[in-house]
């Protein structure tokens, strides 16, 4: 009786879909008669491609054209065509490693700050996420609770994350109050260059760790248990198990994590902007903030220069992504060859 009821409920749920499919069948057949079977692929892709084209490709092209213009006007037709002058300005440098020798010194300061941030943050983030995933994959008491604890910061908006940590780290913040209670000298965490940089790295890791740990956790759980059982029977040391079984089989997930973390790190803005505002001085001025300030926040805005900087930043992102995907593909091919 129960099975029959279940079957009826299932049929009722599917009925509208079946009805819809039947209604769509004649027009789709008509399209297929005209376009052919191969043409149906295009037919189904067109809506998505149109959305992608209008909301991604078109703005990208417009942004590129903007980068070739100058002036405060908004409409492209009213702007002065300057060709590659904005790029030339950004790239005009005696020594790229010393921003002070560059025409647009703040751009290069932002570039090097971002490079340093990416290197440190992505490395630490991947290591921490891997360790966290390994721990959460063990048979812990209240494992679900601990997984939720690590994932919770991901649910917070970046501005909230920045504000929370600002309240903790500012001169008269919670951390300094606690240090004073313990008889320690307070530290101006957000005003000392090194600490401010460390704060942006630490806070962004705290905010995103859970997301990447979750991806790695899924990868760990997909590794067949019998491999570990076989290793255990052979008396393999845990470290060797990690390097020989866990890490190689986790590599596809790890690559995804690295690519995503890399892209996210290059785009760092929200948390860092709220936390340090790019300071002290320009110690935590990153690329996106530079673009935002030049294009939107300055009293006299320069959208052409901001567009050129964003195109250069986009180019770097594309190169990094392709590099990572290439490495990933090579890894897969090697795996298949073995």
């Amino acid at each position, binding site marked *: 009786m129960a099975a029959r009821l279940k079957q009826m409920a299932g049929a009722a749920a599917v009925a509208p879909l079946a009805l819809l499919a039947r209604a769509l069948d004649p027009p789709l057949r008509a399209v297929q008669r005209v376009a052919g079977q191969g043409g149906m692929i295009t037919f189904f892709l067109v809506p998505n491609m149109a959305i992608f084209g209008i909301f991604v490709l078109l703005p990208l092209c417009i942004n590129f054209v903007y980068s070739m213009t*100058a*002036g*405060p*006007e*908004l*409409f492209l037709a009213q702007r002065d065509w300057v060709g590659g002058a904005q790029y030339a300005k950004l790239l005009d440098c005696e020594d790229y490693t010393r921003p*002070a020798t560059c025409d647009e*010194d*703040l751009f290069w300061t932002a570039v090097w700050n971002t490079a340093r941030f990416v290197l440190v943050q992505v490395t630490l983030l991947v290591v921490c996420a891997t360790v966290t995933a390994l721990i959460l994959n063990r048979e812990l008491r209240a494992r679900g609770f601990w997984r939720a604890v690590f994932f919770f910061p991901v649910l917070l*908006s*970046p*501005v*909230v994350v920045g504000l929370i940590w600002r309240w903790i780290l500012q*001169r*008269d913040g919670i951390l300094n109050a606690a240090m004073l209670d313990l008889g320690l000298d307070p530290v*101006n965490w*957000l*005003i000392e*260059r090194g600490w401010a940089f460390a704060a942006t790295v630490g806070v962004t890791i705290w905010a995103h760790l859970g997301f990447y740990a979750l991806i790695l956790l899924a990868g760990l759980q997909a590794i067949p248990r019998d491999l570990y059982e076989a290793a255990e029977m052979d008396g393999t040391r845990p470290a060797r198990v990690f390097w020989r079984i866990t890490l190689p089989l986790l590599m596809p997930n790890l690559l995804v994590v690295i690519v995503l973390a890399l892209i996210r790190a290059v785009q760092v803005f*929200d948390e860092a902007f*709220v936390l*340090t*505002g*790019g*300071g*002290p*001085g*320009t*110690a*935590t*001025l990153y690329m996106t*903030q530079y673009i935002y*300030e030049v294009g*939107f*926040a*300055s*009293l*006299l*805005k*320069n959208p*052409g*220069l901001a567009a050129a900087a964003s195109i250069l930043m986009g180019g770097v992102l594309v190169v990094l992504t392709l590099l990572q995907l290439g490495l990933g593909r090579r890894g897969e091919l090697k795996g298949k060859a073995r």
Partner: protein
Amino acid sequence: MRKMKTSLAALAVGLMAQGALAGDVRVMWYSDGVEGAVIKDLLDRFMAENPDVNVILDEVPYSVVQEQLQVQLEAGQGPDIARVTNIKALADHWLDLTPHVADPDYWRENFGAQADWMRPDGSDAITGFMTQITLVGGFANKTLFEQAGVEMPGAGATWDDWVEASARVMESQGTVAAFAVDRSGHRISGPNISYGGVYIGDDGMPAPVNDGTKDFVGKLVDWTEQGLHLKDVWVSASGSTYRAAADDFINAQLPFYYSGSWQIANLSTKIGDLFDWVATGSPCGTAGCSGLQGGAALVAIKYTENAEEVGKVMDYLAQEDVVREFSERTLFLPGHKGVNAKGGLNWDTEDPNVGAALDTFVAAAADVLPEAQRLPAWKWGSAYYGALVTRISQVMAGELALDEAWARIDSDIAEQVEAAQ
């Protein structure tokens, strides 16, 4: 949160940018204090008297006015009326109200002194009026000075006098610094000019940074290095981001705070009777004791489709009794000649510090030097202010030497002027 806020702001901006219905007047308004509630009250009264005009008040954060209004204006859209501080640089977008107001001569007579601040060079248009006149100046924590047994410097005291006295208070009372100046190019321009700073060249274009500006900025950097000037305010951001030190003054962590008259309502509300504070005017330099005037203007936008209704709203808000009431309730200095001439403003506060502070600022207005008087109506003021803040904070953060900063300031200004022309 930020993304959501941005999306909502973008949505709001999009909605604001929609074509207006006949009789609708959209006002974009930001508030520093209580003026949002006051203007809403005044506009409600206007609509009761003029049922054919529907005024929609869009209260937005200051950042929306600074960052998004210009984009709307460049696109030929925007509200019908806006409250703005970037008055001169955007003057091409303001509507000439002359044919739309009942009595243009009333406007010229009462708001003529600041009319050039908000219209293109060489124009005689009536584009709006100042909702408040502000003057840059200082505040001292009287209670801290008394507790420290340090006499507060009197009239004619120099910046050195004030810093020296505040340093003694700092030592005695254990405050975080002796004084702070808001992170703003506008804020340090009064002191720069007091030391002989000249921004405007003979041709009306930006002049290279001169010795007067270098003198005061050099002192400010030295005081920062000595821990007398609150470093946090200036180095806690990059670029030209505005940062106020008001919270540290309110928390009794600063004996002396250099900001401006618009802080009076804020200080009164937040300090209450926790301690006594006084306005001091601007300390003196070698050339004078100048602050810098400024303020927020209510301007009509030339892309409005309801210019007649806009004229009616502006006429109403510019009436002498309305300006008087607005100023009394918001504790803002009025920009209306008739109101100022009659005086006797009945400030809507029981705080005894407020009346005295407003009187001090009114008196300090007489000390504003001619170079400072020219700045609010000067098109390139924003370029100068932005470059000063950006580079001076880098010097304070130890990233640039002062000599490098002067060169960068000059080139930054030149580039901004070139980009904007």
